[in-house]
């Protein structure tokens, strides 16, 4: 039997004071519906609420009859009114599993270390996910800007920044360091591709020398991505850059990685271990570089592949996050700093196309603003997954990514902002 008793009805039913009820059986579920007023009976009684007396009476009756009123009230959670906040302290613990630091890797060498760079860049050393409070993050993120050894197709928004230097890798390199605040420069030797210009390794090495002379920051030497040609190109480039601790990009499973590893060892450079969105392949290549080729841990950086926002960033993000978590938790085949080809963001049509090819889409707005933010969000997302070094292209994207990563890193002191009245802000 389910019987619902409205207090108002009960009030008129019972009238004045009741000593006892005889011959009353309460069976089954009894529900006390306190209705809209919904007061905690004791509280309401104290406040002299009209229906409260009735409620107390009802409870007394029920108690006398052995019905578990108090439990029932607890279960139906009749709303209470509180007049004071319940005091409390909040705390959250640290992650105990993160015991293995990420390997520190130094790029560039100054004269005291056998190179000619003015400064070096240190990556890695983290003991927690990026910007987390669990452990110190000893080094900030760094940005290396792209320079190509020949004019290439670029999105309009990018190209406008480089038109004056597009035919001179040395001038181009100077510009990104001097004007755009690049921490490093990447020289991409794309003209060496047999399908492009088939520039000889010796000729490409000359370009590398020019760039080394033009700037005094550490550099990345990138091949054309042609697996047959790259080992020879990187080998020659490594030779002319001996002792500079350049990053050789890249060793991968689909080319003669041993040859690149050998060049790095012989001429004191760092190897970029590049795999394609596959954590197990990354482990395998790192293992081969260490065990089979004898590359020292401090000379390995990983590029687990960057897919652009909207074009597989979900894979790239999760792949990096898994790699970083595995590294921190003790997988010594994965605890290396990571590098991202953030420039890939410009492959997304949203970053360069004038307007949407689909008439159902809302207006895409001016592409000049779309491109840089596409590069920023792609990079920022990966920075949160643990990426250390960003290869980038657009100056505005570089500035904004630096600003946010350094803010989260803790290196930005600004005037405090009061957000208490954001609701009424006039925007």
């Amino acid at each position: 039997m389910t019987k619902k008793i409205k207090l108002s009805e009960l009030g008129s039913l019972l009238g004045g004071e009741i000593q006892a009820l005889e011959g009353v059986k309460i069976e089954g579920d009894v529900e006390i519906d306190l209705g809209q007023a919904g007061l905690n009976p004791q509280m309401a009684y104290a406040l002299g609420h009209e229906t409260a007396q009735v409620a107390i009476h009802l409870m007394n009756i029920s108690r006398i009859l052995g019905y578990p009123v108090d439990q029932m009230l607890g279960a139906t959670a009749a709303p209470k009114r509180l007049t004071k906040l319940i005091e409390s302290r909040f705390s959250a613990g640290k992650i105990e599993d993160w015991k293995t630091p990420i390997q520190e890797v130094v790029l560039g060498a100054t004269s005291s270390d056998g190179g000619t760079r003015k400064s070096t860049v240190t990556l890695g050393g983290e003991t927690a996910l990026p910007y987390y409070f669990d452990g110190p993050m000893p080094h900030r993120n760094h940005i290396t800007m792209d320079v190509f050894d020949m004019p290439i197709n670029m999105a309009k928004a990018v190209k406008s920044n480089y038109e004056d230097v597009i035919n001179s890798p040395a001038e181009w390199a100077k510009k990104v360091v001097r004007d755009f605040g690049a921490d490093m420069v990447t020289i991409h030797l794309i003209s060496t591709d047999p399908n492009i210009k088939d520039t000889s390794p010796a000729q490409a090495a000359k370009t590398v020398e020019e760039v080394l002379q033009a700037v005094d920051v550490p550099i990345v030497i990138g091949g054309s991505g042609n697996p047959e040609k790259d080992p020879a190109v990187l080998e020659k480039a490594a030779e002319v850059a001996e002792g500079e601790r350049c990053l050789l990009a890249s060793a991968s499973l689909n080319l003669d990685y041993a040859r690149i590893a050998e060049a790095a060892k012989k001429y004191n450079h760092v190897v970029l271990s590049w795999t394609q969105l596959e954590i197990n392949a990354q482990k395998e290549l790192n293992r081969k570089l260490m065990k089979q080729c004898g590359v020292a841990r401090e000379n390995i950086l990983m590029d687990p592949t960057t897919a652009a926002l909207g074009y597989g960033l979900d894979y790239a993000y999760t792949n990096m996050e898994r790699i970083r978590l595995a590294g921190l938790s003790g997988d010594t085949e994965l605890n290396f700093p990571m590098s991202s080809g953030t420039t890939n963001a410009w492959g997304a049509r949203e970053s360069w196309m004038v307007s949407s090819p689909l008439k159902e889409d809302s207006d895409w707005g001016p592409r000049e603003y779309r491109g840089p933010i596409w590069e920023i969000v792609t990079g920022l997302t990966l920075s949160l997954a643990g990426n250390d070094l960003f290869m980038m292209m657009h100056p505005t994207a570089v500035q904004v990514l630096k600003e946010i990563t350094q803010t989260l890193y803790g290196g930005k002191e600004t005037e405090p902002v009061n957000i208490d009245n954001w609701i009424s802000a006039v925007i």
Partner: protein
Amino acid sequence: MKLNSPLQVYKYLPQINCAECGEATCMAFASHLIDRSKKLDDCPPLLKDEFKKKYMELQTLLAPEIHEVTIGKGEHARKIGGDDVLYRHQLTFFNPTAFAYDVWDTMAETELVERINKISNFRKFYVGKFLKVDMVAVRCVSGDALKFANTVKKVAETTKLPLVLCSFDPAALKAALEVVKDKNPLIYAATEKNWGEVAELALNYKVPVVLFSPDLDKLKSLALTFREMGIKDLVLDPGSYPQGVQLKGSFERFIKLRRAGIKEGQKDIAFPIMAVPLNAWLVYKDAVTASYWETVLASVFTVRYGDIMILHSLEPYAVLPEVHLRDTIYTDPRTPVKVAPGVNEVGSPAKDSPVIVTTNFALTYYTVESDLSSNKINCYLAAVDTDGIGVEAAVAGGQLTAAKIKDTFQKAGFEFKDKTSHNALILPGLAARLQGDVEDVTGLRVMIGPPDSGRIPGWMEKNWPPKPK
């Protein structure tokens, strides 16, 4: 959830393998409850009286660690929260971050209506669906309860999207709630100062409520107090500072709250979290800079645990990356992303244009498609149904076969004799070993493209049009 293996769940099920849920066995159903692809109510026997106790127990044990809160009513209602993991690869994240764009009560009516329409009409096609935004947040700027209520009324008349009512003045919230009390809006916010009156509103109008305090002790106090009063649908705003060390502090608070809720089982604060990237506009007056920075803040808190956020910029260059990043983070990593199989036109193909084959793995397909379109190669691009697996793995696993390729063209009604002058198709370089099979099955000339679609332009120069045999 408190149970983490199908066997644990199985103990509570009827164990009769009636298959009414669509699964062959109760054990299979149990594993779907664990991965949340099925609901308790999908099991008819469990709904009978004799299983009521088990049903109730399971409901508690399977409840997500982070409380799920519904905002709005009807088809546009949105759930937020409901997560069980700290990293998406551990399961998936549920209920994508709800994006609420602001309007305010000092706007002229035409301007207001125009802005609301812009919010509700936004759409961006992506992998077979439209990315959209979710809510309208109405800010009380005037300080006038009546004016606020009138604006809320106008907003509710203009859109069916759920509303967030924003004011620290309980009188203004009450006036607005009177107008939209049947629409289950989210009210913002209860603070250390106004909490008593706002709690009263949440109880009386039975609406979800945001608690705001950048001090986590106070935020927890508020949550405990509201829960004690029987208010369960809570959202926590630990303060989104727009810059500097304050922003770093906000970032830490988001992580601490979510870690405490999921990893440490602190039920008292296991609620959805709200971010307010709009605060970028408190420090940047230039609209482009503010929009950029707002997008940056939105990105940080989309990745790290924001379940709902209040945004201002409706510039496409802000909204587009925001909705794409949300999709990135909330896409279920357990299911490969696929495109619809078929034969699609890239550019404006003519009879002498190539016909290129790829898989329906969305990432592969869109990469090939953008490589082709960005190089202005007019062609037909066939997406073969490989269950969303990439070329190399699909060839190895038998999802990409000559028969499947033939089937794709047949189903699309694509006749090579009518559509092309060359009767040839191009296979991906990574599917080269299918060449003979495809020739036999289709009777077409089969060419082998490059292994990477980025090299199609160079390949075309050398190999297209096909030389007569």
